[in-house]
């Protein structure tokens, strides 16, 4: 894709002189360091990597900290291996095989198997009570993705034609609408929308040259996305909500350039910040409420998922006696623990998958793995 090529070239150019990239010159041989808020200080006074302060200093001065009430959902075993690609809905279920070349839908009115097609494999599965969207990506990531929309009530299968999907990228579905990447004029990387009922699609906002976007989320509360530039050594990442005109608007309360996840809520937004660029997986989550910004504590980058009337994110064990947890934020405002792994310490959760108001979750730990689902309402 031209836009992808152009942006890739821009990024590549920016990365060419990357010998000073990601620096943390440790003394050699080994060096023992003690954690400090800036982390890089003991390693490299000359480090060019920006580091933000400790999580406690993030957010606005009006931050409050949410408590963690235990309110476990009624989790059921999917009956599948923990690494199976299964999306469980209220009545329908989609299972993608290990090679990701076949998707099988099963539900009250029967079943349907769809092949990804030659030299493709399924990259996204979106499911709610009315629709299933199956996105097949080109293995070489050169051709546009092929997306098929299945109307569950009738079994009708339609292909997303206009706007034509870009290769790969981030997709989201809510309330009969689909959001996905497409290639706009001049090869721009753009956000397309499609009304599933009538296949009426439109081009939307396009990223500026040398910038990109990812991390789409969608719910009845709105659409969230991360935008980023090609800055080195770490991209400046902004968390946004898509406004009524289809334009991304930065979440004003979020710290600049360090965001990752974001989703809309009834009272604003929930988002994550990565305080230390060299711990890309360790984020802190925050949300807006009627009382201001609420500090939701630690979570795992890339795990934020809206589902039903809530938004969920994953939290790794915080100490060796801690389980891995799925956290639930509702605009109440309330932060609850919706799932706990039976393993303590050495445990983690996969990215939750939502279908309507049903969550599917894979849990890994030294005391055993499981794949479970639960209704969130």
């Amino acid at each position, binding site marked *: 894709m031209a836009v992808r090529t152009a942006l890739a070239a821009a990024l590549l150019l920016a*990365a060419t002189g990357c010998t000073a990239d990601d620096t943390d010159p440790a003394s*050699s041989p080994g060096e023992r360091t003690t954690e400090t808020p800036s982390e890089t200080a003991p390693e490299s006074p000359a480090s060019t990597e920006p580091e933000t302060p400790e999580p406690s200093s993030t957010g606005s001065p009006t931050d409050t900290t949410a408590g963690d009430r235990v309110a476990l959902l009624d989790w059921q075993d999917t009956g599948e291996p923990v690494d199976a690609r299964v999306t469980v809905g209220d009545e329908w279920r989609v299972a993608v095989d290990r090679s990701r070349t076949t998707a099988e839908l099963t539900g009250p009115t029967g079943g349907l198997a769809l092949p990804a097609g030659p030299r493709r*494999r399924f990259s996204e599965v979106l499911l709610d009570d009315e629709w299933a969207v199956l996105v097949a990506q080109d293995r070489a*990531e050169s051709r546009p993705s092929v997306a098929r929309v299945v109307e569950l009530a009738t079994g009708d299968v339609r292909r997303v034609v206009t706007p034509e999907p870009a290769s790969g990228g981030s997709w989201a579905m809510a309330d009969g609408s689909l959001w996905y990447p497409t290639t706009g004029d001049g090869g721009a990387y753009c956000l397309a929308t499609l009304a599933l009922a009538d296949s009426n699609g439109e081009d939307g906002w396009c990223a500026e040259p040398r910038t990109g976007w990812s991390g789409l989320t969608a719910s009845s509360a709105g659409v969230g996305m991360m935008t980023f530039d090609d*800055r080195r050594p770490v991209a400046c990442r902004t968390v946004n909500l898509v406004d009524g005109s289809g334009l991304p608007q930065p979440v004003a309360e979020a710290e600049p350039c360090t965001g990752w996840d974001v989703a809309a809520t009834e009272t604003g937004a929930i988002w994550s910040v990565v305080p230390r660029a060299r*711990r*890309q*997986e360790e984020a802190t989550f925050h949300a807006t409420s009627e009382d201001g910004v609420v500090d939701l504590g630690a979570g795992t980058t890339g795990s934020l998922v809206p589902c039903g009337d809530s938004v969920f994110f994953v939290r790794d064990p915080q100490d060796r006696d801690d389980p891995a947890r799925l956290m639930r934020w509702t605009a109440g405002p309330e932060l609850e623990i919706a799932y706990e792994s039976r393993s303590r310490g050495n445990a983690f959760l996969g990215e939750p998958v939502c279908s309507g108001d049903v969550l599917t979750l894979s849990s890994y730990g030294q005391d055993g793995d499981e794949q479970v689902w639960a209704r969130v309402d």
Partner: protein
Amino acid sequence: MPPLPSRTQPGTPSEPTSDAPAERGRGRRTAAGAAAALALTLAVAPFLPSDDDSGPDGLAPAGDAPPIAASAAPGLGELTPAMQREIDRVVAAGRDLGAVDGRSAVARELARCATFAGQRYCLGVGWTTQDEAQVAARLAAPAPRTGQERTGDLGPAAILARAARMSPRERAATERAELTMAARSVAKVWQIRHEIQGVPLPEKFRVGSRAVVSGRPAATAYPTDKYQILNGRRTLAQNEYYWCGPAAMQAIAWGSQGKRMNQAFWARRLRTSTAGTAITDMVRVVNRHTDYDDEAHAGPYVALDVADFSFDEWYLLMMRHVHDYQAPVVLHPVLLKRYFPYLDDDASGHFQVGRGFDQNPDGNPRLGYFEPWDQSRFDPSEPHIPRVQWRNAYRSYRANQDHFQHNVGV
């Protein structure tokens, strides 16, 4: 009884085992604190059992065997006649792949195993406690477990295809070289099995004048806070989507030599193709082109199957390597989103450079590593992140175990 693999590096078999860490090569830090007990374990000389005493199932006790001395990190041993016979046997058993039909049959043909001094080595995989059939089954897996995105690790289909492209003569030479290197490295494997997994040394595994501190060292022997080696400036993103091996090798050699050779240089030496790089080649090139394989560091690198390692054992191996050996680990995970949640998509097997640990007493153990894969170079829908990363070590352990070879280069 034929002699056992003997050190070719300084030191003699009869040398007192008081070669304390302080006397070792540059950079070693085994003398600190409780690590001293560990160092004692290492300072004793693991006199390997004879090849002839080892059965096909491996780990067999030995008979009387002339001792070899090993330092904290055993050096390369010499080939014994028994080892040579075993190499000849395994190489001779290789058939022309053109006469072999079917993926499973080809896999069985490639995954032949040898037993050296009681330890099993399988071609292409490394040192393992699994048998030939189990190893072949991994290669013959019907489909890759991951999606299409590849970062440069040689997958099972690519391993089979690469072998099929070789002439019988070329393949025999390659296999002979691999087996020879393995045989000469067996002391390192015994050492790891004993120290990390607590495998008893064979009955005749004499240790010179000092008693062995048996069992594995405690994790408390190591710093509890962040510890790292290698200069964080000396790592670059891979230049090609299939060059995680050359980029990882570039960082490792850069740390050893202090100068940077470009990734194309390492790609040639690693025999990297567009299908990727094999871990056996990573190990081979580390041994040939860096000093991390010397006795002041890790001794000869080996590809070690860690399928039977618990997380604690695996993490201990990481600490042992980074702290005591002052040598990086060739990490070999599968790059799936469930293990690396910041990725935009699942990817293939992969190479990273393990270079630090943080036992993090108030939380969970972390692993420090260089990440060659920069998805923003190949997928502009994702932002750039630093190549220097620290993360939940248990995730890395599971990503390593989920790789079809579940091995590391240590």
